[in-house]
């Protein structure tokens, strides 16, 4: 082989036709997610290398630091103007850094931090064999009721893996609302869903119920993911791209260069309608909208209560964020197609959640149906298709998530011999026995019911106002009717707590560590602050209410 040939080989090999640019990643702007992911990986290493006794403290420390640092990063980005003037699409078009992203990431991080406190609570369950234990199974792999489980309990094992799992879930949730292409969206969906499936199975008490819940959640979640993935495929077929911006261009008919290989399918409206309906369905599954809500009560009831609280709050925030971005960035051009359908979904979600909740007898299931009704209320704001709609949804989510975590944290306190006493009849007369706990729970219930001076009222008012301004007045009327129905069962619990005779062998209220107290106090504080002086936060949400395209 001659030197010339070698040379020509060199030159041919260096031919720039198939050159791939090194991806340009704005690490600084992605830092919130990266910090959380990094900490989760550190958590895995801790599990591998630290002695069992030290793991709990190390995990809690790492998690708290990571969440605080990530929140600080979000605040820093927002202060730099990435929420408004400098909003742009980072990471080669995969991630949007804009107002809604940062607002929702901040909300998720704070909710995650408060949720973490309830995860780390180790004073509620009586110590097993001298070891302080949390709400999670001693050893997830041991069969419920088996000897190996007893041995694990006796040895004082705890599943400290929940902390890295929580961080992975949070990382996925951070990406989910800021995902700017369909693949990132899907990856984020799975990243936060899989840890949640696991977490659901880890209850210390009533383990069979917990595992059943996890299996159901996993099966149905996988089912929904399949729909979503199918929708993504169809949309790719329609637009020839998974990028939000590109799809939006095709929807608007402003696309310039068409790949000849895709010319046949491109612009086929059937693909667009099918694909977007299926993706939206996947997101509606995550927010728990009727008729994709059926997992919610079973999973909320079976999962360990701290997980339920976190999941109910943060999943809803992330999923609504993704839904908003999809509908406002990708599909605004076809809003006359999706609005009527979403109307119908919102109506049956509001009414269905509220009506079925009336006859519930388990407090966790009651709150699950309540969360379904709330998903309906938030959908009303989504349907407004206006800037006010976005900001009102952001505000609602912020207020709602803290109320939810706080309410579930209170549920963890009311216990009897079998663990948490979740049957409503056991809550009778709680106000006589523990007036403070009952009063705090009453505040949360009033916030759920949307009584003035709570965040629930301000949020509901903002959402309904935006919906009415957006031409969805009938939706508002139905929303108010559903609120009235919902108020019945919230107030019924208050009546039960304060105006019924306590039962002789009723539950006791455990005295928690400062961790749960902080979680509950944060819930009350946010509820009252957003209720009494909502204007600052409404303004903040309003500033953050513009999507980057």
């Amino acid at each position, binding site marked *: 082989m001659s030197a010339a040939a070698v040379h020509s080989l060199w030159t041919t090999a260096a031919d720039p036709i198939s050159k791939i640019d090194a991806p340009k990643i704005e690490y600084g702007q992605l830092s919130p997610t990266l910090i959380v992911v990094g900490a989760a990986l550190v958590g895995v290493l801790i599990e591998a290398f630290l002695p069992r006794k030290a793991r709990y403290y190390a995990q809690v420390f790492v998690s708290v630091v990571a969440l605080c640092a990530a929140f600080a990063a979000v605040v820093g980005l927002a202060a730099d103007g990435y929420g408004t003037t400098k909003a742009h699409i980072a990471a080669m078009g995969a991630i949007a850094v804009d107002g809604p992203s940062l607002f929702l990431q901040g909300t998720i991080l704070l909710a995650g931090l408060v949720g973490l406190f309830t995860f780390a609570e180790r004073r509620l369950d009586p110590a097993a064999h001298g070891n302080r234990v949390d709400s999670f199974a001693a050893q997830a792999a041991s069969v419920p009721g088996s000897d190996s489980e007893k041995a694990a309990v006796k040895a004082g094992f705890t599943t400290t893996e929940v902390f890295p799992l929580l961080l992975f879930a949070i990382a996925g949730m951070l990406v989910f609302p800021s995902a700017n292409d369909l693949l990132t969206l899907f990856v984020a969906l799975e990243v936060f869903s899989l840890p949640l499936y696991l977490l659901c199975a880890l209850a210390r008490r009533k383990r069979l119920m917990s595992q059943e819940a996890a*299996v*159901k959640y996993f*099966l*149905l979640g996988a*089912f*929904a993911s399949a*729909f979503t993935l199918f929708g993504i495929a169809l949309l790719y077929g329609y637009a020839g791209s998974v990028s939000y911006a590109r799809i939006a261009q095709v929807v608007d008919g402003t696309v310039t260069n068409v790949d000849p290989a895709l010319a046949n399918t491109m612009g086929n*409206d*059937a693909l667009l*309608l*099918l694909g*977007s*309906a*299926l993706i*939206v*369905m996947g997101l509606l*599954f995550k927010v728990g909208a*009727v*008729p*994709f809500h*059926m*997992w919610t*009560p*079973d999973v909320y009831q079976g999962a360990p209560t701290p997980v339920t609280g976190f999941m109910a709050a943060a999943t809803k925030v992330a999923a609504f964020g993704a839904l908003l971005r999809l509908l406002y960035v990708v599909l605004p051009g076809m809003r*006359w*197609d*999706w609005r*009527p*359908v979403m109307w*119908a*979904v919102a109506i049956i979600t509001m009414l*269905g959640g509220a*009506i*079925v*909740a*009336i*006859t*519930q007898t388990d407090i966790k299931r009651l709150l699950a149906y309540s969360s379904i009704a709330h998903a309906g209320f938030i959908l009303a704001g989504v349907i407004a298709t206006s800037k006010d709609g976005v900001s009102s949804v952001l505000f609602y989510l912020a207020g709602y998530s803290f109320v939810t975590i706080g309410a579930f944290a209170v549920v963890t306190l009311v216990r009897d011999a079998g663990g948490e006493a979740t049957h409503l009849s056991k809550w009778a007369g709680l106000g006589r026995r523990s007036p403070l706990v009952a009063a705090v729970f009453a505040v949360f219930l009033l916030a759920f019911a949307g009584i003035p001076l709570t965040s629930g009222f301000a949020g509901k008012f903002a959402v309904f106002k935006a919906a009415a301004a957006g031409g969805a007045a009938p939706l508002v009327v139905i929303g108010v009717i559903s609120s009235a*129905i919902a108020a*019945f069962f919230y107030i019924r619990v208050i009546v039960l707590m304060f105006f019924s005779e306590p039962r002789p062998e009723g539950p006791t209220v455990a005295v928690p560590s400062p961790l749960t107290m902080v979680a509950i106090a944060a819930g009350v504080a946010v509820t009252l602050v957003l209720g009494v002086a909502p204007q600052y936060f409404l303004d903040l949400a309003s500033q953050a209410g513009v999507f980057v395209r």
Partner: protein
Amino acid sequence: MENLIALLIAAPLLGAAVLLVGGRRLDAVGHWIGTLLSFVSFVIGVVLFADLLGKGAEHRTLTQHLFSWVPVAGFQADVTFRLDQLSMTFVLLITGVGSLIHLYSVGYMEHDERRRRFFGYLNLFLAAMLLLVLADNYLLLYVGWEGVGLASYLLIGFWQHKPSAATAAKKAFLVNRVGDMGLSIAIMLMFTTFGSFAFGPVLSHAGDASEGRLTAIGLMLLLATCGKSAQVPLQSWLGDAMEGPTPVSALIHAATMVTAGVYLIVRSGAVFNAAPDAQLAVTVVGAVTLLFGAIVGCAKDDIKKALAGSTMSQIGYMVLAAGLGPIGYVFAIMHLVTHGFFKAGLFLGAGSVMHGMNDEVDMRKYGGLRRYMPVTFVTFGLGYLAIIGFPGLSGFFSKDKIIEAAFAKGGTDGWILGGVALLGAAITAFYMTRVMLMTFFGEERWKNQPTRSPEAPSAEPAAEHQGEHAEPHPHESPKVMTIPMIVLAVGSVLGGGFFSIGDRFLHWLEPVTGYSEGHSPVGAWTVTGATMVCLIIGVGIAWAQYGRKPVPAVAPRGSLLTRAARRDLLQDDFNHVVLVRGGEHLTRSLVYVDHTLVDGVVNGTAAGFGGLSSRLRRVQNGFARSYAVSMFGGAALLVAATLLMRAV
């Protein structure tokens, strides 16, 4: 100088706050604090009066703007005070008589454990009453109006351990609410008509509004007057209000608060001048009440209730005069002031008598007291002469003017009103002579007849109490009580003459209220002569009935009219049958509708949702496969609906 106006109110308000908040540590000095602050207010009033006198008649209106109360676009309510000749007159009356009564109360309430609280309430009353007469807009006036209502309620029920006092307070409160509704509606009407409720815009533009509007406003103001001033048909509370301590009856339920209605009408003169129908209604109410109160006063054996009937009747005179328009405004106020003196004096006298008679109020158990309480006798007697209109004393001048003005209205109205006023004068002479004779003359019926103390419940070991109170020992009251009585007696004697000679009062008040002569079909001296004749007839009949014959210690059965008058001319029976029964029927039917119709709908809806809920709940069967089917169906519907939307 106008900056002093707020201090007029601030002094008693401070007193009320200090006394009511201060608690028991002020028990020892509380009454003197209250009295002192009342006098401070009086002195400020005198200083302002001297200042006003030094100015020309057209510059005698001072205003003080304190702050903007409700500054909303198109709805401006300010806390502004107006001191003109009319409010000045009231300020002097309120603070002057009020201070004297504070002083009197120091003695009268000496043995009451809650004396500090009593003075706190009295000061609160003064502050509210001053706010009422000094306000420069109707809304602020309304605050004072409600304030005096509150103070009146608290003071009528001051002896709340007596169920009768508690009931009387509640009754006064409720009846007054009816009148207060009238005032609030009047204010709303003013706002919709004139876009303001300040005196300036309302009164200067009164002529521009339609007569219908003005009549409506006038009638609502009249309703307010009826409530506060105990005029027919809202008169029923005043008699029962005598359950309060006697100084309260003197100050609030004789001299000042009950005249607030007269102030309201005179202040709103411009509205009434342009609404003749409302004016006619005012005169009718005044004339009816004049006779009503007088007749009730004739039949009462309770000295305070007799005086209460008299108060009602005298305010009837004032309202009648105020209804006559510019002919009568000045004389309404003049009679108001002179009445303030002599009626306060009479009540204080009655209180002094009760003080000496173990709180006995039944005049049939008095008699011959003139020898035992000479000062009370003389001051009460002067008040008596003043109220019946004895020539030269206060009532002679002021009442005579009102009767003249009534005739001067002209036409049939004038004859009727004048005739009623004359008849009223005769009845006044009768019932006041009756009170005088039964109390101070005749045989001493209290001897050998132990009086029962109203404080002592009958179930208590009565013998012990009766041993203590076996026989009253009438005695003169202490100086702190007699001095105010003497001062008021002097005012009763000289006030009318001082005001009338040279028309001083007329010239003083005319710039505010306006004045016109009217066209009297009868001469002034004829009226005076007729009044004298009526007076002599009234006194004569009373003498024949109560002076010549001994007064029976137990009331005789009496004629039908007497019996009706003893029951306040059946006012409470009327209210019971018409209002209470009617109200009960109405509420019962409303409750029925609520139970069957409203609750039916509500409960039905709730049951419906509950049933729906239990049915829907069954869908949630716990099987993941059913859930998946639901999702699949939902997704299919979603897709189908989306496609359908496009197809449509």
